[in-house]
């Protein structure tokens, strides 16, 4: 589903590359944790998948296509196949939870009837039944993140990218979010989640890819993450 071939990303010539010869393959329906210290290149990885940035060297393949070959006007189509969730939720503050989710369908031209049918379903999946009329500031952090996940999955993307989705949430709420992501993954969506949170990584026992200074230093099928501890020791 996602394949990186010797991908190097250099933001500016003076500092070291954000990604350095990264080769990695993520299969369809896989769940992958992308771990590593701050600045190790996790967000950069996700940005390259979305073609928010282009690789300096190497090739990024998404759903079988080299993203470098996708012309600018086709990038929106690429992104419709990818859902994204961020640490800071990125909801529109002046729109209700329902409208925030509906927004993702509106911009892609879905009809009003389809939107009215789909959005409540998706809100139910993320556990926000009956809260569609709330404004983001009337929701807790965990609930806001659920809205963001609902928005990310409402167009039934093949890939879900999550950049520290639990970064702002307490452990219990985080586990709730993880349950939703696992649910989404079980329905066939490939999930790549960048995180610092070793409790989550260690309790889910999924594939773990660890980045360090832009290089892949570990790739284990049912891995754990002890990054913060090792960093403290070393």
């Amino acid at each position, binding site marked *: 589903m996602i394949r990186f071939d010797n991908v190097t990303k250099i933001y500016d010539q003076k500092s070291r590359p954000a990604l350095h010869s990264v080769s990695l393959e993520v299969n369809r329906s896989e769940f992958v944790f992308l771990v590593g210290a701050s600045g190790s290149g996790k967000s950069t990885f996700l940005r390259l998948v979305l073609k928010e940035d282009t690789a300096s060297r190497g090739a990024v393949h998404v759903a079988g296509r080299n993203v470098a070959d996708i012309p600018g006007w086709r990038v929106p189509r690429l992104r419709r196949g990818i859902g994204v969730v961020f640490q800071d939720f990125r909801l529109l503050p002046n729109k209700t939870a329902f409208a925030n989710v509906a927004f993702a369908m509106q911009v892609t031209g*879905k009809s009003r009837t389809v939107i009215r049918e789909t959005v409540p379903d998706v809100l139910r999946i993320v556990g926000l039944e009956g809260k569609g009329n709330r404004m983001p500031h009337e929701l807790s952090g965990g609930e806001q993140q659920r809205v963001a996940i609902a928005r990310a999955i409402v167009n039934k993307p093949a890939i879900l990218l999550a950049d520290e989705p639990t970064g702002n949430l307490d452990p219990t709420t985080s586990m709730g979010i993880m349950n939703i992501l696992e649910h989404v993954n079980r329905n066939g969506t490939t999930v790549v989640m960048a995180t610092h949170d070793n409790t989550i990584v260690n309790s889910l026992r999924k594939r773990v890819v660890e980045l360090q200074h832009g290089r892949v230093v570990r790739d284990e099928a049912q891995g754990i993450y002890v990054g913060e501890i090792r960093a403290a020791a070393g």
Partner: protein
Amino acid sequence: MRIAFILSEVGSGLRRNLSMVISVVLVTFISLTFVGAAGLLQLQISQMKGYWYDRVQVAVFLCVDNSMSPTCAAGPVTAEQRASIRALLEGENLSRYVSAVEYESQDDALGHFQDQFANSPIVESVTADQLPESFRVSLVDAEKYGIIDEAFSSLPGVDVVSDQRELLEKVFSVMNRASLGALLVAGVMTLCAVLLIATTIRLSAFSRRRETGIMGLVGASKAVIQLPFVLEGVIAAVGGALLASGTLWLSSDFLITWLSRLYPETAFISAQQVLLLLPVLILLAALLAGVSSLLALRRYVKV
């Protein structure tokens, strides 16, 4: 759905930048009023040119008793002189330039004079022998006045050759300068309008960068992201153009009625011609606003 969505985005954008939108409306209003005024003046000039150039004649005035020019030293024009002048005017050599020759006798001249100044006491004191007889020459090309002047002004029996066009040229040059002035103001104001539209759209895009960022992430196309902003600019500018159209329509209607009462002889542009100019103004506004917003967005709304 997408259209409804885009329109609701446009509506929220217009509401959010209301004061900027109003300033765009006003600036386009003023600038297009000047553009329109310059256009109408040009129309009026070409209308008058068309009307008058067909009618202006070169008058070859013949000597009367009290003529002062040296060609009249021998006294009033004689019958032979008149005949030879007529022969020359109607002859082979000038037939390329002359389309018609009319003879105006002293009695005809008095008749015209009396018509023209019908209500003036001056009519009483003028007699036919004080007015010169003349040949009224219509030219194929009104610009070729010089040929007649050269050929006749030194002939014995000819007093002066006068070109009515000269007077018209003076009027036209004044009008031309006025329309040029209007055009100059229009140019400066249009530049202001374009810059203001670009700034407004940029500000609007900046204040909504969160939305546009999210739109980009969920896969909205560039057109869907940019269209609301472009429409905002176009709507504001067209609003200004409508105001300008209304102003031009009302004031030209008033001016034309007023002026044609003062100068019933003059051909003024018609209401239809004014009406035809207005859609051009509106189209111009839409085009300017569309292009300047697109250019403004190119750097600010990245997909």
